[in-house]
């Protein structure tokens, strides 16, 4: 799940409900995925960390970028120049789904936001497993506003399942499906949609 550098970006703006972090477009790699679990320190002594899910990744344009796109062939050096020198920022938006304090996870909003320019990193497989042992984070995702909560939850569950050994993935997904069913017992249409998103794909005959 995490290979090499696990840095996602640095915090640009934050609140207790979430934060946006930024990185250079040239630094985009497998670390910036929709539904990925990330963590960021919220105290100087590193004893408290916010835990969040990436719910949006944005790349801004400008008139020059639009002109480069209009060219018959995008010049490779201009492309390099645009990505490396013009420092096109990539913004990664994160919603908080819990926090860690002295090694224990809490499934609520963190007590304070992270400070600007703090490094945001992906959670390790071990951390994801420990955080998702309990499924209380699902409630926070389903109640999130200004994001697509159903798609985000599905992506996060699939992402988290890969942190588990293959033999445990099915049980994890069933456990999460049950918890989602409890929370959405009043909204069967929505429940059905989420379950279809996390169901294993039918083998092609």
């Amino acid at each position, binding site marked *: 799940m995490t290979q090499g550098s696990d840095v996602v970006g640095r915090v640009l703006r934050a609140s207790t409900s979430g934060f946006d972090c930024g990185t250079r477009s040239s630094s985009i790699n497998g670390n910036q995925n929709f539904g990925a679990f990330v963590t960021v320190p919220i105290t100087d002594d590193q004893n408290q960390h916010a835990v969040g899910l990436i719910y949006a990744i944005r790349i801004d344009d400008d008139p020059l970028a639009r002109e480069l796109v*209009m060219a018959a062939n995008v010049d490779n*050096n201009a492309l390099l*120049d645009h990505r490396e020198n*013009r420092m096109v920022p990539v913004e990664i938006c994160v919603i908080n789904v819990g926090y860690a304090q002295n090694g224990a996870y809490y499934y609520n909003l963190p007590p304070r936001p992270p400070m600007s320019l703090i490094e945001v990193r992906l959670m390790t497989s071990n951390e994801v497993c420990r955080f998702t042992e309990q499924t209380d984070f699902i409630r926070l995702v389903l109640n999130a506003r200004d994001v697509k909560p159903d798609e985000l939850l599905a992506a996060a569950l699939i992402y988290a399942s890969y942190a588990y050994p293959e033999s445990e993935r099915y049980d994890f997904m069933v456990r999460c499906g049950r918890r989602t069913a409890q929370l959405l017992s009043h909204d069967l249409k929505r429940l059905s949609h989420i379950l279809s998103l996390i169901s294993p794909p039918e083998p092609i005959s």
Partner: protein
Amino acid sequence: MNLLFGVNFQTMTLEFVKVVDQVERMGRYLGHRAQTMVDKLDIALDWFTAADDLGAVWERINVVRNSSVSGYRGAAPAPQPHDEVVSGVGTLPLTPKTAVIVAVDGSQIYPDPHGSALFYLINLGSLTYFYGRDRLPEPYTQPELIFIEDLLEDQDGRLINSQTVNTRRTIAEVQLLAKRAWALDQTMQAGTEENAPIFTIHDGNLLKFFNPTELVDAWQLETDYFRALQKLHESNAFAAGYIDRTSSSSVISLLHLLNLQPDEINDANLKTNGQIEGISDAQLFAAVLQPGERSAVFAQSSPQNKDYKDKYGAEYEIAFFYINVGDTRPHIVRIEIPMWVGRHKPVMDHLHALLVAQCAIQGRERYPYVLTRADELAYIKQTERQQLDELIRIELRRQQITPERSTKLESKGMARSSRRRYLLGT
């Protein structure tokens, strides 16, 4: 705020009711002028097509160069043996395998007598582009804050004018081009950089006139400019000036000269372009050049250019040509080159091809990519101006100096600022 039909009338000072009639009259005038221009352009095209005899052209040029006639300021063929048929057209050549293109642009903050302190700033931006290699272009910026009184005042103690700042910026641009080209040439000679021809692109004309009545230290500026050109030459770089919106009519003047009767060649008749007065070279070549094609190379007949040649040698005479860098519609640009570039046919072909390739990078906005980026690197944004001003104010206070304030500027700011509405309870 007084909003009517979505327009904020409280802040409007231009009375459109009084302008609408004038706009209509302007439209009728421009329509009539456009029709007249079409007729004149037809004449110019006929004369251009007929100008295919270099011998006859030189004969006529020699008349205005070697007689009492001194008012001719038009084009002439490039010096022999590098001259080309006036009506000749160069097709788009192949680009070189590799080349290095360096562009520099600049912007400035003018000295402001109403500002917190007296200074001006020149910010230069440069991009080095490695053509034919997958290599990251190299950006470079060079800001320079000028605050010494001697450089801010003329000999009579008056604040220098904006033309002087502009000229100093232009010279700094050429000096930076020379510095970058020199460094590249040194690394190529040392073998640490792959060998490739170096082309430097300056945004603007190379034939400059340093008017002593307008500029402070005009003579020094001219000397500095030529030193920079000489350093460019010594760097084995091929220099070019890129003029995007040219209003020049040098070639039109040449066509007018060629179609005068021998007894009509006098200063009075050369003051205008007669039957084709008002047509520009760009309009002519928009009708002549296909996408990617270039015109013949010409030299500008002017006292400045003669001065360049006499003082610094034939290689420093400035020549020019036009390229249609457009794709679907004509876009004529003027390229100025010193004759050390114009005398090499393969170099001219490479320059021609590289400029068209550079313009094609940006899609619809046909302009060399290197110059666009150099401008972006040099441009000082309004917020940056304010931040610099703040930085200077802080530094002045640290030095126990109270920043100057202008009553005039502050009272103007009060009158120009937006109104506030009274709200109950505030």
